[in-house]
């Protein structure tokens, strides 16, 4: 019973995922107005040759700020989980 339920869920998910190659066109994106603006005016406004770096750090800088904070939080989380195990070693270092 449980195994049959797992196989049924898997078949439904596989059918849903196989709609992706069936319905989308590869090579003809539907809406590209924002990217046409970035490609035409990005080099004059930001004076950078690499449009991807200009989008990541200049036009969409807030997302990069959030991502840096996520990476910092991950390091804080790893340090927090090993805190009890390494308790005596940290005080010996200083």
């Amino acid at each position, binding site marked *: 019973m449980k195994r049959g339920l797992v196989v049924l869920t898997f078949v439904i998910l596989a059918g849903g995922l196989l709609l992706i190659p069936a319905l989308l066109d590869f090579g003809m994106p539907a809406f590209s107005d924002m990217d046409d603006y970035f490609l035409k005016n990005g080099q*004059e406004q930001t*004076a950078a040759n690499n449009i991807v770096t200009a989008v990541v750090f200049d036009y969409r800088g807030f997302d990069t700020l959030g991502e840096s904070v996520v990476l910092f939080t991950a390091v804080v989380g790893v340090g927090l989980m090993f805190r009890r195990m*390494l308790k005596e070693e940290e005080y010996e270092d200083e």
Partner: protein
Amino acid sequence: MRMSKLVRTGADLLYPFALIFGLYIILHGHLTPGGGFQGGAVVATGAAIVIVAWAYEDVAGMIRKVTMKAQESAGLLLFIGTAALALGLGYAFFTNVLANSGSLFGLSVPFGPNPGELNTAGVIPIMNIAVGIEVWGGLTVILLYLLSGLNKKEEGS
């Protein structure tokens, strides 16, 4: 546990090249593919090769966790400080105040393919360096914590 002498010598020879390559990718982020995150990952891979080839007890005296934690915090503070610099000058948050302006990184670039100058793109190279320092420090700290947690002897088991 230490690896053999061949692996240790190879890691010692490879680390400067990985460092130079990673710093090149970080610094030329506005001209060629790459940038802060990719270059920081390459430099952290070079540090990981050295940490894995030598035993953890030999390396723990030289690459300390306190130094790398300070480096990561300095990278994030430099990133936020560069973004808040535009607030102090009267513009909105995150404005590119140094582009097309003629001071530190401020050469203008016309539209079209060109060979690429290092002096362009305003605030973007400073942000690239800040993010590269942060990713290098962060990935090395994660690796050091995982290795020291594995090597610790159990007390009372």
